[in-house]
């Protein structure tokens, strides 16, 4: 997900909007940063490429080189001032007609206004409609589990979605037979998860066995004008036998941590992410600080739509890394 710019990794998931960013530092610049007074007595971070700056921060080159800042208006190059008569009040003034900006005491980063210039238009637009075009951070599905292309075991089937403060309608259909297996049922969107009862799995199984192929199901979720669907498969027949034999293998030859790791791997291989997440979570009881295990557990939990659990494990992993450093 991250992308590098001048060697600095950027991860969109971990950043808040900044007012400026250091994009380039000349080797002779000797950058100096003064953070806006905030009561924090820690030393300000040394300026590096990719560093986010916020309104009030002051940055300058102590050496003869230059540095480049990304501002909302574009890139700005800042050099050390040779003109000693510039007063501090003049130093913060941006002159767009110049490609270079020379300063003595430092360039003060202007804060980006919180509101758009014409906030009434923003409000009117929000009341009128939504953008019918691609824009990040997309795509994020409201259906967390089952995910597209995943597999489920009928007995463990659960639906997870991003909670919404309104009624949602959920239904499950079989693609082969075009039969509704469950729903449409209207439920409270705040709940976030549901274990549906009375799903007609037999209809999906009959069709898949007759055609000797995997049963593909469609889960539809709708509320207001929004609707989405995911396609997943129901484990059965030959695939079920394969999974069972691999699970038996692990059970017959391993115990403890290895057993759960093996079972988790088998489930993950068959896109049974929910079951895999449960196995890795159990395995973590045996080795809570194993980096490999944490990474696998994060992946399985994320794929199974258990965002909170994935986040919790991610934080644990990060704390592990910091303590090692």
């Amino acid at each position: 997900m991250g992308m590098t710019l001048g060697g600095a990794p950027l991860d969109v998931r971990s950043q808040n909007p900044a007012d400026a960013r250091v994009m380039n530092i000349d080797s002779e610049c000797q950058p100096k940063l003064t953070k806006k007074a905030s009561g924090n007595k820690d030393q300000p971070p040394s300026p590096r490429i990719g560093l986010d700056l916020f309104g009030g921060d002051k940055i300058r080159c102590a050496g003869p080189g230059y540095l480049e800042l990304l501002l909302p208006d574009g890139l700005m190059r800042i050099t050390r001032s040779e003109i000693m008569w510039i007063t501090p009040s003049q130093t913060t003034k941006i002159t767009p007609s110049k490609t270079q900006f020379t300063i003595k005491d430092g360039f003060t980063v202007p804060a980006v206004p919180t509101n758009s210039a014409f906030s009434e238009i923003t409000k009117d637009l929000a009341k009128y409609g939504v953008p019918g075009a691609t824009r990040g951070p997309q795509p994020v599905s409201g259906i967390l589990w089952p995910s597209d292309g995943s597999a489920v075991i009928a007995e463990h089937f659960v639906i997870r979605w991003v909670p919404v403060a309104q009624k949602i309608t959920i239904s499950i259909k079989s693609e082969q037979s075009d039969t509704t297996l469950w729903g449409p049922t209207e439920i409270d969107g705040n709940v976030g998860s549901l274990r549906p009862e009375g799903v007609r799995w037999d209809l999906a199984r009959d069709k898949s066995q007759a055609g000797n192929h995997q049963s593909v199901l469609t889960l539809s979720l709708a509320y207001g004008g929004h609707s989405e669907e995911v396609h997943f498969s129901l484990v059965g027949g030959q695939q079920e036998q394969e999974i069972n034999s691999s699970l038996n293998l692990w059970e017959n030859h391993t115990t403890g941590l290895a057993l759960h790791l093996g079972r988790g791997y088998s489930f993950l291989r068959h896109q049974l992410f929910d079951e895999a997440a449960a196995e890795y979570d159990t395995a973590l009881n045996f080795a809570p600080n194993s980096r490999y295990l944490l990474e696998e557990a994060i992946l399985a939990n994320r794929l199974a739509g258990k965002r909170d659990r994935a986040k919790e494990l991610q934080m644990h992993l990060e704390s592990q890394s910091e303590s090692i450093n």
Partner: protein
Amino acid sequence: MKTRHHGKAERPPAGQESPNSSSSEDQQEKRVRTAKNSFWFALATTLAIAVALLALKERVEKTKYGMLFEQMSYDLLQYRLKPETNVPLLVVDISSIPMVSSNGLKPRLVTDRRQLQSVVDVLTEDSEKAPRAIGLDVDFSPDQYGYADPDDWRFLNFLLKKRKETNIPIFVGVNDSLALGPTNWLKEPIYMPLAACVVVPFPEPGQSTRSMPEWLQGEYHGDYLTVTTNRCYSMGAELASAKPDPRASEKTDSLACVKPDPHIFVNPDVPASEMPVDLAPASLERDVPASVKPVPSWLRFAIISSTMRNGQRLTESQFLVDFSALEILSNCRLQDPADSALEVKDKIVILGRTDQTNDTFTVPGRPEKPYPGVFLHASAAYTLLRGNPLYRLTDSSRRIMDLLFAVIIFGAVTAIRVFRTRKNVGDFNENSYTRVISFLFALAVVVGTPFLVRIFHVMWDDFILVSIALVAHPLIERKIDELDDRIRQRSPSSDQSRTKAKE
């Protein structure tokens, strides 16, 4: 209808006219008078019931079931619309282009600009096979933190350059940036000719997305009481009006590659060939894009082809979209724009994500799955290109029509009654006739409306509710008759008892 009682009571049986001429004239005159009175009474009753049913229908329309019926009716009408054989639109699927993290001040995922540029390059490289216009269903709106991707200025310059070289109109999507100012939809005035609005309106409660905007007009209040209005035409409207303009090369001379803000071009990595040349400031004048065909003035009281919505500072004009070409557009989507089979010559090409995207909407007539926004823009362009818009009935014409149906049925029954009276043909059971005619009329409405929508394009979405009302009308009338009969039967006995009491 009330005439049944009066007609039956006053008319002498066939072949039993009195030999006395003066008495016969009196009777005739009395019959005529009674008939006249009963006619007006019956008409008044019919209209009263019709008005009551109309009021009931308007209440029902707001209920969950009423909305369901209206949506079903609208779905059926949309489904009946027939697409043209040659649809000059093509949706090119760009789902394979990855979303990458931008290096902007506000981190976000954006469609990879380099790959997007190569797609546009492929589409425009051969002038013999070039498309008529290109729309990018990608939201390029900058915000107060700048462009979605800091390098977007470079991509926009590339598009301006392409427009100049090829005369092919190219548009990119904007939405939120309407709030940045009258000329800042793509941050710099120079890029205004590339901007097309990509907003999809919220549907009415219980409905799917029926309409798309033709334009959105922002009202920008500046200092010293100055007000600037600027109209952002929708992607559909911009594309539908696009045709290679012979004056385009002269026109774009003043537009292309103007360096919008010198201090942003200091990146030494930008090759000199890409550096824009300084030209005169851009003219913001643009050709007025395609608009919805207006309804003739004499018909405007009854049908409309576009509606206006007024916000605090934003006015929108929107029109009903003809989704009949959706299957053709969906079937034409191509995974790989570099595919040799890509036939884009003289077509309007819309690049958009059709998979793994959140801008999906349910549309009328196809409730089984949501469609990505790119198909809605393509359908909007198709509606405008077709030049035969979909009409909606005005509220007043809906009411007039509902009343008119009641009067027509009443008129038909009256005509039969008059005919039969003149011919002296047996007894006349008006209620039965009314029931039969109402049922036939309701059937004609249910069958005829979806049939006629192909010819007249009138989206009369309450025709099922009207049909139900038409069938209910004679039943209600019959109940009123029965009630009336009971009152009449009771009245003479009460009179007699009163007389006896007096004696």
